[in-house]
């Protein structure tokens, strides 16, 4: 939260956060990268992810936030989930619409094999149990971009359940530690995307483009195991990398191939979970983190002031940096779920259950898909660290740019040496550097000797800079301390 936001609505009081889990959340609300002065210098004792309100007359209140995510990823396929029309970004409006997509009466859905394979691959990559039998349902609501008046989804029995996603949160004093965290995956389901509405306020009309209507989506539901914006953002980034490595989705948020809704609630530790709100319209990882942190704070403020949280849907307005209620009428939607009668249950096989003489065009073998899964990002990072001696946090960065390098045909090893990313392990060279830094900054050295505790950090920083961040700060500190005879 930027400082102005903290003061909003709190009658002059200042709310502050304690550091979370060794500091994983201490940069919350500071996407610009600068840590505010009031945060620095606080102790980082909390073991639980906690958001603490400053002491009030009522006594100290501790809050815990829980964040769950519903992520929709557009499946990378040639044609749509239930019809043969093409999937393409930025085509002329209504140029990729089949009779079925336009919901012409009498048309029927036909399941796209590639989309099923994409769902199985993603499920396997996320350690899910793949349901050998899954079902399709209709979810009804009226909206102009939903031609049939219902969406075909998998509500009763989705294709994959009970998985996990491991993501690494940067922590430690200099963000140099990577703490692995796990978020459980409740389920992955196949469903149709809707069309697009474009509001033309000038002419008081809405224009509908059905190019996107019927495109296959993977809905990945993450359990509320996350506690703040940064965790959620990191988890989403990791999922993006996985989907891109699998090739099942390009997962580009800017192009709308990945959309995230967040479910957020706060409660006192030990007490039951609070009422949750759903935050939609999160178009980038940055906004995702911002919106979640804002909403957590908003809910805390509301409850601290004796208000209550409504179970509602809110939209994030990035220019204002806040969430606003989206509801224009009372009452929750009843989607009147019903089994999709035109699609028989989806049956998948594995090596043991595959019927003899089955037409390979007509069946999907989970084991076969598992064997052909490409290398996942976590495995690639592990390799980079082990084989090339790279720092773990660099391996994260590297992978993000992997797409760029892929085209040039370079191997990770080449990239590492080109970019000089190897860990500087030469003790002698490091000592040399420390010596030269000390020589160049006598005043700082004096401060250290005068027991100024912050001075050594400055020296470490300077040495690190000289090594182009390739040296382990712990090692630098050891060398410096030895040299300074501390």
């Amino acid at each position: 939260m930027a400082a102005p936001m903290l003061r909003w609505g709190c009658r002059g009081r200042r709310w502050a956060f304690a550091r979370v889990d060794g500091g994983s959340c201490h940069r919350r609300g500071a996407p610009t990268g600068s840590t505010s002065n009031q945060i620095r210098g606080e102790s980082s004792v909390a073991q639980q992810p906690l958001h603490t309100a400053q002491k009030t007359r009522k006594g100290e209140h501790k809050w815990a936030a829980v964040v769950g995510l519903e992520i929709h990823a557009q499946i990378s396929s040639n044609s749509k989930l239930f019809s043969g029309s093409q999937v393409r970004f930025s085509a002329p409006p209504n140029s990729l619409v089949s009779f079925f997509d336009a919901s012409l009466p009498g048309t029927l859905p036909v399941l796209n094999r590639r989309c099923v394979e994409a769902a199985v691959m993603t499920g396997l990559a996320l350690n899910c149990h793949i349901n050998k039998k899954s079902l399709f349902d209709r979810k009804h609501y009226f909206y102009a971009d939903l031609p049939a008046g219902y969406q075909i989804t998998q509500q009763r029995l989705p294709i994959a359940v009970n998985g996990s996603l491991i993501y690494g949160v940067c922590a430690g004093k200099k963000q140099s530690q990577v703490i692995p965290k796990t978020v459980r995956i409740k389920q992955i389901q196949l469903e149709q995307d809707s069309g697009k509405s474009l509001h033309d306020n000038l002419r008081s009309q809405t224009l509908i483009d059905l190019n996107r209507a019927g495109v296959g989506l993977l809905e990945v539901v993450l359990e509320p195991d996350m506690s703040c914006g940064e965790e959620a953002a990191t988890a989403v980034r990791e999922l993006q990398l996985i989907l891109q490595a699998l090739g099942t989705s390009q997962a580009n948020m800017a192009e709308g191939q990945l959309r995230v809704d967040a479910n957020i609630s706060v409660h006192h530790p030990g007490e039951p979970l609070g009422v949750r709100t759903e935050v939609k319209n999160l178009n980038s990882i940055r906004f995702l983190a911002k919106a979640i942190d804002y909403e957590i704070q908003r809910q805390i403020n509301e409850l601290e002031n004796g208000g209550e949280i409504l179970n509602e849907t809110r939209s994030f307005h990035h220019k204002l940096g806040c969430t606003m209620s989206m509801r224009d009428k009372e009452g929750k939607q009843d989607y009147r779920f019903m089994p999709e009668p035109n699609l028989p249950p989806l049956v998948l096989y594995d090596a043991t259950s595959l019927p003899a003489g089955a037409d390979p065009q007509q069946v999907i073998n989970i084991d076969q898909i598992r064997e052909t899964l490409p290398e996942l990002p976590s495995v690639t990072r592990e390799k980079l660290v082990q084989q090339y001696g790279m720092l773990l946090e660099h391996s994260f960065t590297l992978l993000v740019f992997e797409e760029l390098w892929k085209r040039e045909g370079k191997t990770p090893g080449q990239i590492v040496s080109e970019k000089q990313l190897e860990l500087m392990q030469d003790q002698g060279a490091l000592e040399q550097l420390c010596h030269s830094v000390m020589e160049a900054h006598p005043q700082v050295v004096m401060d250290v000797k005068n027991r100024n505790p912050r001075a050594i950090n400055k020296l470490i920083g300077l040495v690190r800079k000289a090594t182009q961040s390739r040296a382990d700060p712990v090692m630098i500190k050891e060398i410096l301390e030895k040299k300074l005879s501390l």
Partner: protein
Amino acid sequence: MLGRSLREPDFETKSWLRRRMSCPPPVLKLISASPFIHYTKCRGQSLGDLDGIPIAVKDNFSTSGIETTCASNMLKGYIPPYNATVVQKLLDQGALLMGKTNLDEFAMGSGSTDGVFGPVKNPWSYSKQYREKRKQNPHSENEDSDWLITGGSSGGSAAAVSAFTCYAALGSDTGGSTRNPAAHCGLVGFKPSYGLVSRHGLIPLVNSMDVPGILTRCVDDAAIVLGALAGPDPRDSTTVHEPINKPFMLPSLADVSKLCIGIPKEYLVPELSSEVQSLWSKAADLFESEGAKVIEVSLPHTSYSIVCYHVLCTSEVASNMARFDGLQYGHRCDIDVSTEAMYAATRREGFNDVVRGRILSGNFFLLKENYENYFVKAQKVRRLIANDFVNAFNSGVDVLLTPTTLSEAVPYLEFIKEDNRTRSAQDDIFTQAVNMAGLPAVSIPVALSNQGLPIGLQFIGRAFCDQQLLTVAKWFEKQVQFPVIQLQELMDDCSAVLENEKLASVSLKQ
């Protein structure tokens, strides 16, 4: 003309066709007389089994470039860009599409009385057989006001075949909508096994129960049409992949001594007319006297069938009708204040009371708080009903024999005294359990009632044993020798063309 491929139609055929087209239709409503009766210009090669054969199609099947309305304001002016699979298959075999036939709006009804084009009149109202009987009984001055319904919802298709405007017509069957009008119009009305014939292009009423139905004047014709239609369709995921043996020729059953006929005792209901009951009994006796084994069976969940059907049918209707919002096609109201106001007005204007009533009921059953108690419960009962049939067939029965309707066709003025829902519940009693179980069934015209009107009986077969079912039906048809309808006009106009009264027995077969 009969069964031969048309090269250049001779003078008699052309004039016959012209007369049929230009004749004001007192007996049926051909919605759109096909403007392009194209004659097959073949060089001695027939296009297929149905080359040159006139057929009619119920107006809930998509026909490319031809208005398809479902007899509803909602689709008035809607011209589909594609053919239903079954329509395409008929055209590929060389059939001539005479036009689209009238129905109850969106196939909801058992009288073909509730469509926007008005009710369908049963050709038997004008038959010699009926009129002569009526002369014997006192009746009202205005003869025409006592015309009879065709039954429904495929009444237009039934009337079209019954009045000789075509050889075969497509209907649809969700709860009896092909078999019911067949019985009332003295026709063979065949409902195939669910999954045998593609539903792609059939505008759905209840996706899990709908099938395309076939109406013909004899069983052999129905078999030929079925042969053209049956088979898997990649566009319909509910069709089965088993290949169908073609051609679909029916053997002539020499004797029925190896056959076991089942009579479900629960179908003997108090509302059944004595005439129908008597014919049912005689039919059973006939089988027995010819050596077949005839046994009583029980379908214990029969009494729950109507209610179960109502819940599932309305639920699917509520869902299927959600697409009619005036945005992409069909009727759209003039209101443009907001999208929701537009939806509401469009749907109020587009749908009749029957459709709106079913949508409201269906949405009620699908509400979260009701779903378990109504929809899921009904699905469970449906399973029990389907199992009843499985058990009956497992006990050695080959084919079940039941009435098709409670009585012969009633006059329109009497029919409309009760509302659509009441009538449907009454009239579907013998037919809708079959749709819930997905079985094949066929109504065969047996004899004329005391009033000179047709009465039919129904045969129900095992799933995907359609050929066996039709074989038994063909044997029975031969035994009963149902009379040909004697339509005064037709006889006067076409006596030159027709040779004798045995028209019905002359089939499409060579």
